[in-house]
């Protein structure tokens, strides 16, 4: 009951900035359309792709690969920035909420529920857009991969919003992580390190694997990475919970 009251407060904040709803949908769509326009030789060029030590046969179209990875980047950037702004703008009210009787667990849970709903909506829209251009083998794996990636980056957005002192510092940290991890490192077209063991610890790595396995036949089931992703999410949730406990009192 108390959590639903908190969710109402956060929803009212979101309703006040209606423009954000428009741009959270428009921005990722723009990035996906860019992938379609910039794909070489229309939609027919193909590339050699090795995933899970297997050469993908038939070779995937560059357009498909660009679309899948741009969708991932777009979802990551929109979800992490939305959660960062949501938490950064309201975090000064948390000590007051605690004084009127809300526990830290209730406050954190209400944020997470709101963010999970936003992430699912954005991932769902991006999934529908992707379906129009890409023939996805395992649609459930694909949409789950998007939701999990967005959730991981949203929690990172919350943690950064909690830790940083200035808005610009937090923004650049999130954008750097999102662009570098989802936009470059996990992209087999440009990166020579996308299957390097060092990048295993990066937040988008396991979920990008789920997306690619759900899209192309690599010989490995897309569900294989889910345990690792769940572990990653639990660790991030714990970090978020403990950082938010140390909020300064008014």
């Amino acid at each position: 009951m108390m959590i639903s009251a908190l969710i109402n407060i956060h929803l009212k904040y979101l309703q006040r900035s209606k423009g954000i709803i428009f741009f959270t949908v428009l921005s990722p769509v723009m990035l996906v359309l860019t992938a379609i326009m910039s794909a070489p030789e229309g939609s027919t060029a193909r590339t050699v792709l090795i995933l899970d030590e297997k050469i993908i046969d038939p070779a995937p179209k560059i357009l498909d690969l660009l679309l899948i990875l741009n969708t991932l980047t777009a979802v990551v950037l929109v979800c992490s920035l939305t959660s960062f702004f949501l938490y950064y703008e309201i975090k000064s009210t948390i000590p007051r909420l605690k004084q009127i009787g809300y526990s830290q667990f209730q406050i954190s849970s209400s944020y997470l529920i709101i963010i999970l709903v936003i992430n699912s909506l954005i991932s769902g829209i991006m999934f529908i857009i992707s379906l129009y251009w890409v023939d996805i083998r395992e649609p459930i794996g694909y949409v789950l991969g998007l939701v999990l990636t967005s959730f991981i980056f949203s929690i990172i957005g919350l943690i950064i919003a909690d830790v940083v002192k200035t808005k610009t510092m937090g923004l650049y940290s999130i954008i750097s992580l999102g662009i570098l991890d989802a936009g470059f490192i996990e992209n087999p077209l440009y990166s020579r390190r996308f299957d390097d063991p060092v990048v295993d610890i990066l937040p988008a790595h396991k979920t990008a694997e789920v997306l690619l396995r759900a899209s192309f036949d690599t010989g490995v089931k897309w569900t294989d990475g889910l345990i690792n992703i769940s572990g990653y999410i639990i660790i991030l949730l714990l970090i978020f919970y403990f950082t938010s406990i140390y909020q300064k009192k008014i």
Partner: protein
Amino acid sequence: MSVKGFNINLNLSLYKPFLKNMLRQRSIFISTFILPILIILTTWWITADTIMIVKFAFDSNTTISTDMISIHIITGSLTAMGITASIFTFILVSDNHKLSNRLQLAGYSMISINIGMFLSLILVLSASALICGSITLFLVETKEPLGVIISILSITILFSAIGNLLGWIYPKNNEGTLILLFYSFIDLMYFTNPMGLGVYLQKWTYLLPGFWPTQIALTAGFYGYSDSTRQAVLYIITYVLILLGISIVLKKQIHNIKGTKVL
């Protein structure tokens, strides 16, 4: 002096208090280095070691094949500075709206406030651009190092002007940041970049703000000096002046419609 309702008393000294205010918060200043340094170093570490073919707008008959790492480091540094400059300027301009309204009440003209704030932001961002350029030149062997530095500085000023325009006319942090982030990313990573094979060097991309700085950087990096570089610098200066002019005119219009809020 007043022209059609515009007070055009230009007081350039206004940049000093803005600059002091920014430098007081060291974390804001340091934040401008995070994105460029991380992007350049990561690009150098991850980019596939393959050969890439590049064409130039200045000389469409010339084709150069070079390693993808060098191209990505140069275009990566341009992208990083574009994103950093646009978002940094946007956030600070939109956060300083009430301050600028108070300055207007104190008698400063809209032009003085806009130019003063823009100059202070450019000074801070130039430090970041120079460091970004130095790291780029350390990692990539270029034919005209000065051209690469000029292109990084020009992209900083140009995207700062875009952030400035949006900050004055649409001062909403969340939406503005998303617009600028995605716009800078799409412009510099796909439309004006050799990476966007399907659209690179198409005529309509010449109008995009990222096009000429990217061409200056690629020409200076892999081709050498070209007479057209000066022409490109002139385009960029014109672009910046037009954006600043639009921001002053639109801000004035918004001010006339909505009035001044100082509290």
